[in-house]
């Protein structure tokens, strides 16, 4: 198996866009956690996690969303989760993430939601 996971952070239109690719599981979730933490450490609190190339996520990855959202919202920020493939979205839905997170279809919609807010 060649490296099945990649992560990349970009600043776009005043937002931090974290792009996830491949498999987020208990092995790779710590890298995702570090990436979110790095944005918070730099007071970049409006974050889109773009999951267009995410093929799998387990609870270790879901836990990253869960653990940061309160702090971010308290401080006026947010995380939106964009571009989830149906198979992957199913995992978020089973656990009720749709009640807590906005999960727009694509990155453009996520950005529009941040502008409108």
């Amino acid at each position, binding site marked *: 198996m060649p490296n099945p996971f990649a992560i990349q952070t970009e600043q776009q239109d005043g937002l931090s866009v974290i792009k996830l690719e491949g498999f987020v*599981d*208990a092995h790779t979730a710590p890298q995702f956690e570090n990436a979110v933490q790095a944005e918070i450490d730099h007071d970049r609190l409006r974050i889109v996690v773009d999951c267009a190339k995410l093929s*799998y996520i387990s*609870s*270790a990855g879901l836990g990253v969303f*869960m653990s940061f959202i309160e702090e971010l919202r308290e401080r006026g920020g947010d995380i939106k989760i964009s571009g989830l493939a149906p198979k992957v979205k199913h995992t978020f839905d089973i656990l009720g993430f749709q009640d807590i997170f906005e999960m727009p279809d694509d990155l453009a919609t996520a950005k529009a939601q941040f502008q409108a807010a």
Partner: protein
Amino acid sequence: MADIERRFTLQVPSSTENLAMIREFVVGVGGQAGLGESEIGKLELAVDEACANVIEHAYGHDVSKDVTVRASFDSDALHIAVIDEGQGFDPGGVTQSELDELVQQRKSGGLGMRLIRTLMDEVKYEIVPGQKNELHMMKKIR
């Protein structure tokens, strides 16, 4: 699928690095058992969660220990067990909080067992601490 029972076993060192290999194994067995793509996805996730718990909680990331996944199926059902020789625990004693509580408490964990129970048709723990702890899961076929 034929009505003979087919048995598969995978044993790997207790490291999260091996979760990808475990998932490939599970996907392969699920495909042979004749499960559809969405059911295979559920199986894959449930077994990943169960193995991640063993690696993290039962063995505390001690890579000298082994995680064993045993699977078998006939035309009715696929049975899959995750087996460790770690410290064991009382599954009934684990309080399962709702997502909004976990979020308020800023927890990063506590979703795994709920996922397993939701994804599989039957879930049963058999715990003999330090000797053999087995998590049995079953998925109906069709």
